[in-house]
């Protein structure tokens, strides 16, 4: 059983002058699950891309089933039996499930005409295997919810008859039930003798579902050991290179009166009279499974998605119209879960990013038109220092060159600078490494300390319990439960509400 499926020996890879992979040596046994953990920027994605044939390694050797393996293209990797389930789904939203699954090798006749019937049959079979028989093979991906899309992605790896399947952060966009389903499938695959590499930020998952754990830091494999012999504290220590004593910061603050309310929010086909209120200095968490409507609720009250009726009120004053520009003018801020696409101007400098939402207050004197460049630089310097953003020069460095955690800090800096009183945070620590997470929690606590009202959406129950003063649970586009910090925080309770309270 301890036969080796995949072996990496002293792999190096550099881009220009930057050496991303210094020395990767790793073994994966047949029928085993290997958990791969590491901070963002440790080199996980690069390593996977080398395995997947997207990048070519500079030196070192890879052995697949004892044979040397040098993939020149993703197609090579697929042919050799390596499949990927990516963090960002690689599905084509304009094509059907079947077409997505067969996109690189459709069965066809001599004229090149595709045999749709055969494809359909295979897909139905495979979907059943994954337990996703509710998905019709002819559905266009765009009309599927996220969780089902992930299932399609997994089906794809089954289709390839892969021997090695690499899951790269597969659970980030999944609800807990979907997660459980996923792990069920992973176990099933393992039983079939497939080997699995499981990359995740969520240590809990890694501990419960893997046979071995490898830690990657700064392009090197720090350790590889049996899961049964590992403990969380050591792993975290190896990941960050230092020990974390307290994951969640605490601070003294006073919670005041209700300052922010959303009343009877309705959205066609989704929300029907959903209300919420937050006090001054309070951090309210919203928990919900995938598709419960948490993200949608934030986007709705911020005016990003249409709102058919309802009121958004800050300090007794109704915000109208509910449009991003107006909401911001009235002291609201939204940090979306997708910072690269919705949070940052990647090719622009940190300065341009940081002053973006407070451009109007950086105008010259009382003028309407002209910008005060000096003031912009001043504010930027102040924010980079306050939030400890690592940069060589905020006026020169572009946001795209920062690591995930630092990028998220830039997004925070942008909003902290515009001094809003109501923060809407959607998965503020998504894709952020452990060290940076801590700093982001500190920033959130600081905001509350300075009498802001904070609403924070997260998929990690633990995180919410650690940070929030109150947790609201959402299910099927409604709030189904409410818990406060001092009384009754328990993960089980929260989960009960999240699945509809009918347990």
């Amino acid at each position, binding site marked *: 059983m301890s036969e080796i499926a995949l072996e990496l020996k002293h792999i190096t890879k550099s*881009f*220009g002058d930057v050496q991303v992979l210094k020395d990767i040596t790793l073994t994966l046994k047949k029928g085993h699950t290997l958990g791969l953990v590491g901070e963002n920027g440790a080199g996980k994605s690069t390593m996977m891309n080398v395995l997947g044939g997207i990048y070519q390694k500079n030196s070192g050797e890879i052995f697949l089933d004892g044979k040397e393996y040098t993939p020149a293209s993703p197609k090579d990797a697929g042919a050799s039996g390596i499949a990927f389930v990516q963090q960002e789904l690689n599905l084509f939203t304009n094509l059907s499930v079947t077409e997505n699954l067969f996109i690189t090798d459709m069965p066809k006749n001599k004229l090149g005409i595709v045999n749709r019937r055969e494809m359909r049959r295979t897909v139905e079979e495979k979907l059943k295997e994954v337990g996703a028989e509710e998905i019709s093979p002819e559905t266009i991906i765009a009309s599927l919810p996220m969780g089902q899309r992930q299932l399609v992605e997994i089906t794809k790896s089954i289709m390839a008859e892969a021997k090695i399947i690499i899951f790269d952060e597969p659970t980030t966009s999944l609800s807990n039930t979907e997660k459980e389903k996923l792990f069920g499938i992973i176990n099933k695959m393992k039983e079939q003798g497939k080997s699995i590499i499981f990359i995740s930020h969520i240590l809990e998952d890694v501990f419960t579902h893997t046979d071995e754990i490898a830690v990657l830091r700064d392009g090197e494999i720090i350790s590889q050991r049996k899961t049964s012999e590992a403990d969380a504290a050591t792993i975290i220590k190896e990941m960050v290179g230092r020990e974390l004593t307290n994951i969640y910061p605490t601070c003294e603050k006073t919670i005041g009166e209700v300052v922010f309310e959303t009343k009877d929010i309705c959205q066609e086909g989704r929300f029907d009279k959903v209300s919420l209120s937050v006090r001054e200095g309070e951090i309210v968490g919203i928990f919900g499974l995938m598709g419960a409507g948490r993200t949608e609720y934030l986007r709705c009250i*911020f005016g*990003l998605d249409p709102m058919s009726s309802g009121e958004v009120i800050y300090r007794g004053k109704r915000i109208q119209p509910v*449009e*991003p*520009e107006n*909401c*911001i*003018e009235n002291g609201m801020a*939204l940090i*979306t879960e997708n910072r690269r*696409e*919705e*949070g*940052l*101007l*990647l*090719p*622009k400098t940190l300065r*341009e990013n940081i*002053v*973006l*939402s407070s*451009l*109007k207050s950086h*105008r010259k004197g009382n003028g*309407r*038109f*002209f*910008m005060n*460049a000096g003031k912009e630089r001043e504010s930027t310097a102040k924010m980079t220092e306050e939030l400890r953003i690592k940069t060589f020069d905020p006026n020169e460095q572009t946001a795209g060159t920062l690591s995930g955690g630092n990028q998220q800090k830039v997004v925070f800096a*942008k909003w902290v600078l*515009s001094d809003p009183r109501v923060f809407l945070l959607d998965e503020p620590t998504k894709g952020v490494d452990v060290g940076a997470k801590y700093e982001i929690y500190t920033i959130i606590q600081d905001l509350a300390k300075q009498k802001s009202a904070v609403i924070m959406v997260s998929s990690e129950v633990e995180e919410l319990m650690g940070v929030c003063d109150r947790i609201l649970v959402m299910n099927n586009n409604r709030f189904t439960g409410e818990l406060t910090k001092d009384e009754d925080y328990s993960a089980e309770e929260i989960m009960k509400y999240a699945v509809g309270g009918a347990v």
Partner: protein
Amino acid sequence: MNTLKKLKSIDAIYWFVAVFFIAALIFVPGFANLAALERLLSQGCVLIILACGVHLTVLNGGVDFTSTALLALTTVVGGSIMSTKGPLGGSAGALFLGLLVMVLLGLGFGIINGFSITTFKMPSFIVTMATQMIVNGLAVVYTGGASVTGMPSAFAKFGKGSIFIFPYLLIVAIGVAVVMHVITTKTLFGRQLYAVGTNHKAALISGVSPRKTIFKAYVLSGICAGIAGIVMLAYMQSGSVNYGATMFNDIMGSIIVGGTSPAGGRGKIANTVMGALLINMIDSVLNILGIPYYFITLIKGLIILVAASIDLIRMERKAAR
């Protein structure tokens, strides 16, 4: 060391212009005299102004085909108002009314473009293509195809006069360019424009309204077309529906050669002005050398390709660092 670094950081377009200019001075007979330079400068004015306007729309990832058609429409409408043969007999009032109407026409169609693009979320490519047809059609209907002549003498003086070798028209063009430069680099709108051009969604979520910003860009482009119409009318002393017929490629050429990213979010007005001067100089020099026009067309096409390739390579190197 420091000066070398500084020299290196100067955008490529300045080198192109300088090298080409010096080479032309040395090698092209008839180029190196003041009268010729003055002519060269006055030829470039319209292109500079139009390119500045379209530059704004390119900055947010769009394009404005309407501007060349607007150029023609404003010259015939404005020309017919201020003409000595017109109903107002070329009086001073007529002159000012004409100028006003030209700018307002540009503004009007800028508003139509901006409104359709932002309200109906129509692709700018198609919207401005359609309005270009409409504007062109209107110009033809207005004049019946004939050209408009008889500009008042004051306007003629404005069109032909110069200070040393700098024509008044160039001063107008530089004025427009400076205003646009200030707008893009020093104002709130400028920041918003670059932000929207770089990342539409992030700008929206950060409280910068892409709708308002894009709308303003097209309105400004329209106004630029109106001003370009005035300069054209002054330069040619007649209005014609034919103006700008083959100009669009030169406009895009100026912008691209100036290093502006056609995907939006990056590009400087000053470089676009340099690009316009370069394109204009290429035209002139090759004409003077007696090179057939189809080779000029061909060369200009190649230059766009080369400039865009060089720009991409530079950007990539910068990103790799």
